[in-house]
């Protein structure tokens, strides 16, 4: 069973600060997805990274896939209160019958004024 460890588990910062969330595994994944989940809702996809070393930017969010495709990071620049939520990384792999995701343990981010 693949495992994905996320750190930190909780993060409480003030608006304007920068932060980085890490997602680590001993397994290699075909791709790595990042989701954000808000209270009372299901997770929503932010980005998918596929190639080792790939970097993707989504406005103030920067996602990186490790060279060996075992780890990933999410960096938020100048956090805003609207960034508050649960961030989940998920490693994708193919079982032979379907594509599955293994989810990380999650990072709960709180951004305050």
């Amino acid at each position, binding site marked *: *069973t693949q495992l*994905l460890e*996320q750190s930190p*588990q909780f993060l409480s910062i003030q608006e304007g600060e920068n932060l980085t969330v890490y997602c680590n595994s001993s397994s290699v*994944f*075909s*791709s790595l*997805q990042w989701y954000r989940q808000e209270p*009372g*809702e*299901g*997770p*929503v*996809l932010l980005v*998918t990274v*596929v190639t080792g070393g790939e970097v993707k930017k989504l406005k103030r969010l920067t996602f990186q896939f490790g060279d060996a495709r075992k780890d990933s990071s999410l960096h938020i620049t100048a956090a805003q209160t609207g960034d508050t939520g649960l961030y*989940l990384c*998920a490693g*994708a*792999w*193919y*079982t032979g*019958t*379907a*594509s*599955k*995701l*293994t*989810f*990380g*343990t*999650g990072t709960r981010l709180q951004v305050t004024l």
Partner: protein
Amino acid sequence: DVKVTQSSRYLVKRTGEKVFLECVQDMDHENMFWYRQDPGLGLRLIYFSYDVKMKEKGDIPEGYSVSREKKERFSLILESASTNQTSMYLCASSLQAGTTYEQYFGPGTRLTVT
């Protein structure tokens, strides 16, 4: 607008009851998934289905079964609910091929077993 709907947002059941959680997607997706979400544990896969009447166990299938009689509908069944099945249950769907397709999630069902 893509949509995954779940039959209930909140459910309270008694120990030993049979519980049905229903999920419907309108995207014609081949794959459907049931997860449970618990604090500090992330999302854990219970079962998934890659076609009508086809299913595979996920990481934590004990105490659960599933049914997929139609492509758009995937049901999770708790044969005899227990208190350790109190959790948030999330349904998701995705396209069949490849590992880059996103999973679309429903809003979740918060189940409490007393």
